[in-house]
């Protein structure tokens, strides 16, 4: 990559006037016009702040503050950590060169100055710096956009006030935790009042993570409204959603799902699932995993789902979660939780905090998990008040 050096700013720090002039002459011939000078390290540091160079040509032996000290001072300052510093050194010795690198120098040029070598090394450092700043700017932009997308994804989920009002209406305790991974993820969940006695719960996880998975959650959000939940059994509803997702998802992309309807008059939870992690049902001290096997959504047009029914009376609970809960781990020497450990995990959380078991669950999960998360984490606690 050949870049124009005319935009580049170079600071020359040298106590010898002849050296300053000859260096300036060499780099001016290479097209660099913005050049500033300093006569020792202390002046050099000030000039870095005022002139904001893209590169420093630095002498080693100078009065007041030598080049090694100046370079070390620059490297202690986070702003100038990446500023290229080329030492000019008269000693072609291994030891001297090691000292320059140890002080934080990027490279060095030998004295007396050889114009060809000098320009080549200056150009190389400036090109590297330009690539670095371009990449850093690009990365900053992508991070801003991802943060924006994460916020949009959050806006698809039920907000606290709405959860509260649904909980009041049906005599429930509803709590949820949602955290997107370092990038973006494909988790989604929702709560759907169907009529005065029935409320629906949906949790969905698109395979993989990243922008593709996140876009799929937006797709899903528009599809959900297309299929009324009131008159369909959960298995039928999942079948309709499966067909719609099969139409839009390319091969290899799919979603796991759990859709359940809680009927308060019959104390019954009826659900169908498509390969979501096993939900946890707690009734009267008995805590167990529910069967959630089912062909994942969007993989085949012919998928069929099964309705399951369980008693969920007052005082009972249902705990839904995404696979991050059981697959993420690795901190403090602990592996992932794993599916089999979930009932005990829930039981001990209920014992620790009966009113808000999600709180100890979160604490215990984060104690064993490296951050940032590799995948989205969703956890939804649905309990019937006693």
């Amino acid at each position, binding site marked *: 990559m050949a870049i124009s050096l005319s935009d580049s700013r170079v600071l020359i720090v040298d106590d010898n006037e002849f050296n300053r002039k000859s260096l300036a002459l060499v780099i001016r011939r290479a097209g660099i016009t913005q050049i500033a000078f300093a006569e020792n390290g202390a002046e050099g540091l000030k000039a870095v702040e005022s002139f904001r160079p893209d590169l420093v040509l630095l002498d080693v032996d100078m009065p007041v503050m030598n080049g090694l000290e100046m370079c070390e001072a620059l490297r202690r300052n986070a702003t100038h950590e990446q500023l290229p510093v080329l030492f000019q050194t008269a000693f072609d010795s291994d030891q001297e060169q090691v000292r320059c690198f140890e002080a934080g120098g990027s490279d060095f040029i030998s004295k007396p100055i050889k114009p060809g070598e000098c320009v080549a090394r200056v150009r190389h450092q400036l090109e590297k710096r330009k690539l670095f700043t371009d990449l850093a700017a690009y990365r900053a932009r992508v991070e801003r956009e991802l943060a924006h997308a994460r916020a949009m994804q959050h806006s698809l989920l039920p907000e606290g006030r709405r959860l509260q009002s649904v909980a009041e209406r049906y005599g429930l305790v509803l709590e949820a935790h949602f955290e997107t991974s370092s990038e973006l993820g494909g988790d989604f969940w929702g709560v759907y009042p169907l009529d005065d006695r029935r409320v629906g719960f949906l949790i969905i996880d698109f395979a993989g993570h990243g922008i593709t998975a996140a876009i799929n959650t937006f797709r899903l959000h528009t599809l959900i409204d297309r299929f009324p939940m009131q008159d369909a059994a959960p298995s039928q509803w999942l079948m309709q959603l499966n067909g719609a997702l099969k139409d839009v998802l390319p091969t290899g*992309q799919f979603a796991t799902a759990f859709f359940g309807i809680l009927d308060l008059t019959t104390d019954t939870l009826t659900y169908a699932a498509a390969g979501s992690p096993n939900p946890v049902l707690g009734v009267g001290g008995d805590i167990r995993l529910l069967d959630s096997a089912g062909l994942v959504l969007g993989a085949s047009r012919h998928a069929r789902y099964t309705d399951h029914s369980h008693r969920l009376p007052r005082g009972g609970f249902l705990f839904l979660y995404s696979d991050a809960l059981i697959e993420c781990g690795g901190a403090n020497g602990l592996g992932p939780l794993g599916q089999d450990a979930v009932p005990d995990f829930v039981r001990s959380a209920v014992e620790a905090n009966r009113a808000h078991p999600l709180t100890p669950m979160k604490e215990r999960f984060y104690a064993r998990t490296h951050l940032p998360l590799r995948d989205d984490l969703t956890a939804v606690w649905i309990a019937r008040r006693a």
Partner: protein
Amino acid sequence: MEFRSRVEQDTVEVQLSGRLEFTDHDRLRDIVELLDGNGLRRFVLNLSALDFIDSAGLGMLLILQEEAEQRNIKLVVSGPRGDVKRSIDLAKINEIVTIEQ
């Protein structure tokens, strides 16, 4: 994930080991290329040495199934165990891909 392949007459057997997950997407292309062998009829994906598969990994099995179908090759996934078997069973991948124990 690591893989080794072995050709025997009209069959390719690919043995996967380690973890098959999101980050392995680039390796998938190398496995798909194995489907282009001459006179190939049967493609066996041996998972007996695979320790973990995530949802993206399951997606890769579905992609391989489609790629094999398009070439008229029979794909068989063999020997999944432990967590891998559990994930495959949970997602009912057997409704799309032939799984042999």
